[in-house]
Every structure is written in C-alpha cells, then in structure tokens.
C-alpha cells in the first residue's frame, strides 16, 4: 500500500469517529469542555485568592490562577485522551465491534489503531482550544503563548492515548480501566505539578513526580505560559512525550492486530 493510500485509510477511520461524534458530542460536553473551566474557576479564582494573599510574591512570580491554568490544560488533555482510549476502544473491539466491521473493508487493524489515536488528538485539540480561549479571556495567557500551548496539549493527549489504547485493546473487560483511572491517572493529576510546584513534595516523591509523563507536559505548558522555558529541559520533555507516542503506537499495532485479525 502506498503512503498516500495508507494516509487516506487512516483518515477514513478519523472520519468515522467524527461522524459518530456528530451524534454523540453532547454526552461528553461536561467532561471535555466544562470540567477544566470549572477547575480553573474554583481553584484558580476561589482558592487562588487565599493563596495569593498569603503569598504576595506569587508562585514562580505569578498569581495562582496563572500558575494553575497551564497545568489544568495538559491535565485535561490527559483525562480526555485516557477516556477516549479506553471505553471506546473496548466498544470498537468487543462491545459493538465497529472496528471488526471496519477491517472487513480495505482498512486494516493498523489504520484503525492510528485513526483512533489521531481522533483522540482531535478530541484533545477541541477541548484545548476552548480552554485556551477561556485562559485568554481571563488574562491568564496571551494569544502567541496559547498558539504554542495547543500543540503541547495535543502532544500530551497523544502521549497518553497511544500506550493506553494499546493496553485497552488487550483487555477482555473494562474492569482494569477503573483501576487505571484510580491508581495511575488520578495520582498523576494530583501530584505531578498541576496544582502546586513539586518542590513542595518530599525529595523521594519529587523524583517520582519528575518521572511521570504529566510532569513533563506541565513543565512544557507552564514554561511557555510563564515565558520561562528552559530549552534543555524542554528538549527532554518533548523527547519523553514523543517517545511515548511512538512506543505506544507500535505497541497498539501489536494489540490491535492480535485482537482484530487473530
């Protein structure tokens, strides 16, 4: 299959997801669009008032809301990507078998896996655009920074979606997904620097936090938002997240191939 034909097949899978999303988008409005804004309002503005009072110099020199917002952006990207790569993948392979239907056409399991990943990226981008617009409206960032933060949010989404969809495809039921959210995603959400600088953590936990993918995403996003990006660190952040996309996608080729074409 030529490169162009492969790309076209992958885009057909994305098209399918968009087609279904047109019918079902209202079901996920709250989690994708409203939740992050509510976090920003409640914690950034509400809790932020207390934080800023006791901390006149600000956190890293800015108000709590400005510190928090870039963290929420990528943490939401993680949440959306994780959700998009778990239950819908289980549905496509086992519950509704829509993926099984797709590969009866010229599409194959790898097109399905790649298209699924890209669609998770689209979903993250949609949420990211809305959230960045709110940030700009709140004065939490500028337009030029926002234009750089959007690709970071998308990369973050892809970095989580790729290995998680590979994992999801290998499962026989959805029970492991609850554990994934509870024991992996939630702790990362709380402790990887989204809400407070990880320098507040004990030394050992700081090391753990730095090892998590979300910390690398927060580091990039916040670095851009606050104009304090360290190029050397940024390269490490980007490499880490990109490696997750590549390794995750190759892993999902294996699991999608095995589940769909055994």
């Amino acid at each position, binding site marked *: 299959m030529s490169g162009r034909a492969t790309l076209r097949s992958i885009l057909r899978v994305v098209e399918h997801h968009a087609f*279904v999303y047109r019918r079902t988008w209202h079901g996920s409005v709250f989690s994708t669009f409203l939740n992050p804004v509510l976090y920003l309002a409640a914690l950034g503005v509400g809790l932020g008032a207390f934080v800023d009072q006791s901390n006149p110099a600000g956190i890293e020199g800015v108000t709590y809301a400005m510190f928090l917002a870039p963290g929420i952006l990528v943490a939401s990207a993680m949440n959306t990507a994780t959700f998009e790569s778990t239950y819908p993948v289980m549905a496509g392979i086992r519950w509704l078998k*829509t993926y099984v239907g797709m590969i009866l056409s010229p599409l194959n399991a790898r097109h399905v896996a790649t298209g699924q990943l890209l669609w998770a990226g689209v979903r993250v981008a949609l949420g990211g655009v809305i959230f960045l617009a709110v940030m700009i409206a709140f004065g939490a960032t500028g337009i030029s920074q926002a234009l750089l933060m959007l690709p970071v949010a998308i990369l973050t989404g892809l970095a989580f979606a790729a290995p998680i969809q590979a994992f999801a495809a290998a499962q026989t039921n959805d029970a492991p997904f609850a554990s994934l959210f509870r024991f992996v995603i939630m702790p990362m959400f709380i402790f990887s620097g989204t809400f407070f600088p990880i320098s507040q953590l004990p030394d050992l936990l700081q090391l753990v936090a730095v090892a998590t993918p979300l910390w690398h995403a927060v580091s990039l996003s916040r670095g851009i938002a606050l104009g304090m990006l360290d190029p050397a660190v940024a390269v490490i952040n980007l490499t880490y997240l990109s490696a997750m996309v590549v390794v995750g996608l190759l892993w999902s080729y294996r699991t999608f191939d095995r589940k769909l074409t055994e």
Partner: protein
Amino acid sequence: MSTTPAAPLIRARELTKRFGDFTAVDAVEFDVQPGEAFGFLGPNGAGKTSTMRMIGCVSPVTAGTLEVLGMDPRTDGSAIRRRLGVVPQADTLDMELTVMENLIIYGRYFDLSYRECRTRAQELIDFVQLTEKVDSQVEPLSGGMKRRLTIARSLMNEPEMILLDEPTTGLDPQARHLVWERLYQLKKQGVTLILTTHYMDEAEQLCDRLVVMDKAQIVAEGTPRELIERYSSREVLELRFEDLVTPRLDGKDGGLIERSEQLPDRILLYTDHGEELGETLYAEGVRPVTSLVRRSSLEDVFLRLTGRRLVE
C-alpha cells in the same frame, strides 16, 4: 459446466488454520466458481467461520495456499477486501448512527464520494426493504432488520462476491425467509455467494454446491441433490414409540430398511419406499405413537457422515 471453465474466484489447497495447539481448519481443499452459491455446512465449531475469515483476509493463513480473486490474502488483503462484501456472524453496526448513516460511512471506507454513498445507500435500503427505517437509529431495530442492514452494507462497494457467515442464525422464520429471498435476488444478478450455515434448509434453499465440514475437515462435497443421493436413501420413515423404547424391527421390514439411526426420541429408517415400509411394519404388529414419511435431507447426509446431528 461450460467447456472453458473460468478461473475460480477462490482456490484453496491444504488450507490450514491453527490457534496455538488447536487446529480449526485442517488442510481443506475447494474451489468456488464465479456466479455460484457455495456453502459450508456443518455444526458449530466445525471450522466454517475460521475458513470464512481467511477468505475475507481478516485472519492469516497458517499453512497451505489460498487464492481469492486471483490474489494472495497474505500480501493483497486490502485489494481483495475492496472487491468483497462481508456479512460477519455478529453484526458490527454503528448503534448510535441511523440506517442511512451506517451505509454512508461504510461506503467511505471504499473511497466512494458522499454523493455516491448516498445514492447507493438509498438503493440498497430499498433493496433490503428498510425504506421506512432510513432515518431510524440502528439500536432499536429488530434482529432481522439489523441483519438486512448488514447485508445492505456489504453491498455498498458493489462486490463480485459476498461472504455470509451464518446469515440467518437467531432470526425468526419470517425474517429468515425475507433474507433468503433477498439473497436469491442477488444470486440471480450474478453475484457469487459464499455462506456458512448449520441449517440444512438454508443450505438446500440457497446453495448450488456445498461442502460438509466436521471437526476442521471437509467430509463431503457436491450439490445438495448429489449429496443426498450419494449418502442417503430416497425417503426416511421416522417412528416414535411409547416411552421412547424402540421394539426390535429385525425381520419385520420385508428387506426395505437400508439403514437406521436411533435418535434419543425417535428412530430414522432409511428406505426408498417409506409408505410401503410403514405398512409392512404395521402388518408385523409394530405400533408407533407417531409415524412420518419424508424425503431425505442434508441433515440425514450429515448424520450418516458424522454420526451426529447438525443442531444439537
């Protein structure tokens, strides 16, 4: 038979599928000619679905050779699938989408334009008699309607050959007859049909030629009529006795019984003269509770070949 046989659409030689230690398909050989309706008849677990999945290029061949439309599924899967229609055993429809939308998005996988998709979808929706449901969501449709929609979907790319894996399993008799009638129309239009079934009436209705599969192997091949002539008698006398106890029939049949099969609830007596046999036995004092003479069927062929029934 034409004098210059066309190249077969499917050619299988020692075709084998293994899952670990388990052999699902064991060195089967068959050809399917253009325009014929070809069936795989056998009980659940005989290897029919595994064979179909290999033909449909969604399951790799373990050993042997398989050619589909003159191509090799190992290397040309995508090109082969472009020209096939597939109705899998379980429906794989998009439940959130409407009948029309299901067909449109499926047509897109074959690179049809939206306009083409819409035109073909409307024709096919009429063909499978779902016209009134065109804008209904799929989820609440009946099993028979979903099955017909899946058949319509398999026709979106105007395939030369359709693979149907148990097209009417789970449907009520009326829904089955509607599906059969539509498949018969397709056959008349020259579409090659390949189907699996464990219903002998389905095989007899639809198949020009079939293979009987059991335990991963092909145990017989021919037209339904040939198979019945070769492996069974013309007629069958079915007798049921009180308390399900069959008396001794030896020497009372006037030599009319060719063969017999004792089933849990009745005995099948294979003969060319059912009525006469019944009368002869009655004259000898045999008093069944019920007695029925019928023509031999593929079920009898299967029973003869494997010692078991198709649907347990």
